[in-house]
């Protein structure tokens, strides 16, 4: 089977079940793809021996009753994996080998999948282009000069280039949805608390959430079902019954009310984004959904709020990197304090240092009320905007990003212009809501563009259903030439 790797996860699972292909053949096919795709720089670590061994074990005694039976998966290098190096894209963790497994990855393995490798990402998930990684930038398979988005850029690149049948990322301000949009793939940020944060390298704990990145909406529902669930080890994990997202996937969306927020535009937004949004509205309307104009008046304040809340939490979370218990330690410094200062200065990259300094400043004595408390109040207003809207609508449709994939190096000298990339994705994190980014069209350069569906808390099934219906009627196909191999 020469082209098994360009199929969807659900098709691959079917092929394994019907014994059209063995788990070993499948794994070998991905390994071959990965070895031919070094130029993309999507992997930090590969675990081929483990994958081959697990595949053989599966083939000897196949259990096809599981959600992810016999499938190799690469995951973002932000998930701790037992006895496999976990770097978070940082020099400060470049020798860190966890002695435990994150709950989310453990859930994947318990559902029959096994690890293929660890995917590059922005350092500590801080970035929108995968250019802040200590292990170098990742390249978008769409074009050799393009960023794959970030922070889950290794994940989006590997998925679009057929280096893994599906993957998982984390999303603190858009880090799943923006890279999905830039690579023509599907990405879901679940409701805060649906997937356990235990064992994920922490960035901003009140915003971080793991989620699936896949080729189709059906695949997305399978992955979400496998990875989600209550976890005692995460104090903010929601204790509720597990849902069968894939079994309950339906494409009938007749009568659903879709909100269209007038604030989701920016100055100089390319006309193509507007046209894409119009196209999305028409598809949903033709399927029998009702479009309703809504207002989310505090949208423009979401990004400034995020750049207080996220760095504040990050400065606190990243205080643990002290060169004592794990990770990199500087050899310079005459006493303990200097050792800390040099370790952190040499171990962290520029963007991470910037955010730690912002966070330290906004939490420092005399400034807390003016910044952090203010941001927590505005966060309340942003959440209230969504609460009010969801009394009138079932879901909200917006563009995923204000532009298509940009060029490598284009925004690295201007942090604020980089941050503006997340303008449509950040509000959802602040409100803790689920949101799905769907490939919806191409711009005039042929680069993918995405649309975002935002749902009520814990209403993943509904946005997956809308996405499923949308996908069937949109006719989007990724046209990637394998220029890298």
């Amino acid at each position, binding site marked *: 089977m020469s082209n098994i790797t360009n199929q969807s996860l659900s098709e691959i699972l079917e092929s394994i079940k019907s014994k059209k292909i063995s788990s070993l053949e499948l794994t070998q096919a991905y390994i071959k793809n990965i070895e031919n795709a070094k130029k993309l720089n999507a992997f930090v670590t590969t675990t081929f021996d483990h994958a081959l061994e697990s595949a053989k074990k599966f083939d000897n005694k196949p259990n096809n009753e599981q959600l992810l039976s016999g499938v190799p998966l690469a995951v973002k290098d932000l998930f701790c994996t037992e006895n496999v190096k976990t770097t978070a894209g940082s020099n400060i963790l470049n020798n860190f080998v966890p002695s435990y497994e994150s709950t989310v990855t453990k859930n994947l393995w318990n559902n029959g999948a096994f690890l293929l490798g660890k995917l590059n990402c922005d350092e500590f998930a801080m970035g929108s282009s995968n250019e802040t990684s200590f292990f170098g930038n990742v390249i978008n398979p769409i074009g050799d000069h393009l960023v794959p988005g970030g922070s889950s850029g290794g994940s989006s690149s590997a998925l679009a280039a057929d280096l893994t049948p599906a993957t998982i990322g984390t999303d603190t301000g858009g880090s799943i949805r923006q890279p999905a949009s830039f690579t023509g793939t599907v990405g879901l940020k679940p409701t805060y608390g649906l997937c356990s944060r235990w064992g994920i390298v922490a960035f901003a704990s009140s915003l971080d959430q793991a989620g699936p990145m896949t080729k189709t909406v059906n695949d997305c529902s399978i992955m979400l079902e496998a990875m989600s669930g209550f976890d005692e080890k995460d104090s903010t994990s929601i204790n509720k019954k597990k849902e069968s997202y894939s079994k309950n996937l339906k494409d009938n969306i007749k009568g659903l009310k879709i909100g269209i927020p007038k604030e989701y535009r920016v100055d100089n937004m390319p006309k193509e984004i507007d046209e894409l949004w119009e196209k999305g509205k028409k598809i949903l309307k033709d399927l029998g959904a009702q479009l309703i104009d809504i207002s989310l008046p505090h949208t423009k*304040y979401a990004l400034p709020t995020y750049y207080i809340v996220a760095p504040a939490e990050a400065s606190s979370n990243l205080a643990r990197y002290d060169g004592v*218990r794990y990770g990199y330690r500087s050899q310079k410094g005459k006493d303990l304090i200097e050792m800390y200062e040099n370790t952190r200065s040499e171990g962290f990259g520029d963007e991470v240092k910037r955010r730690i300094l912002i966070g330290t400043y906004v939490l420092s004595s005399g400034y807390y009320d003016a910044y952090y408390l203010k941001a927590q109040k505005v966060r309340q*207003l942003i959440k209230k905007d969504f609460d009010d809207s969801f009394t009138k609508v079932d879901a909200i449709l917006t563009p995923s990003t204000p532009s298509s994939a940009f060029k490598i190096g284009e925004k690295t000298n201007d942090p604020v212009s980089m941050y503006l990339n997340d303008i449509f994705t950040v509000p959802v994190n602040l409100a803790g809501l689920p949101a799905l980014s769907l490939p919806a069209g191409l711009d005039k350069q042929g680069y993918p563009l995405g649309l975002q569906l935002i749902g009520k808390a814990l209403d993943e099934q509904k946005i997956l259903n809308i996405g499923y219906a949308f996908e069937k009627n949109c006719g989007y196909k990724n046209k990637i030439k394998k220029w890298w191999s």
Partner: protein
Amino acid sequence: MSLDKEKIKHVAKLARISVDEAKVDSLTKDLNSIFKFIEQLNELNTDKVEPLTSILNQSLRSRKDEISDGKIREKILKNSPKKNEEFFVVPKVVE
């Protein structure tokens, strides 16, 4: 407001990050442009708004105060850059 170089050095001290003198200028410029962006929030009157402290409609769970793990000293010490058999080793702190 604007951040000057001295303030940035002070914050860096608080954050235990040594700042390369050659980079202070560009850091000052970047941080000031970020704070200019952040300070859009001052347009909003939030006097009567309660700060959001949790997005979950549930309070944090408490668990029984019982030992559920332990005797894993080796595992904990495994990743330390400098250790002896029982302890993490740091530069001398007491004379």
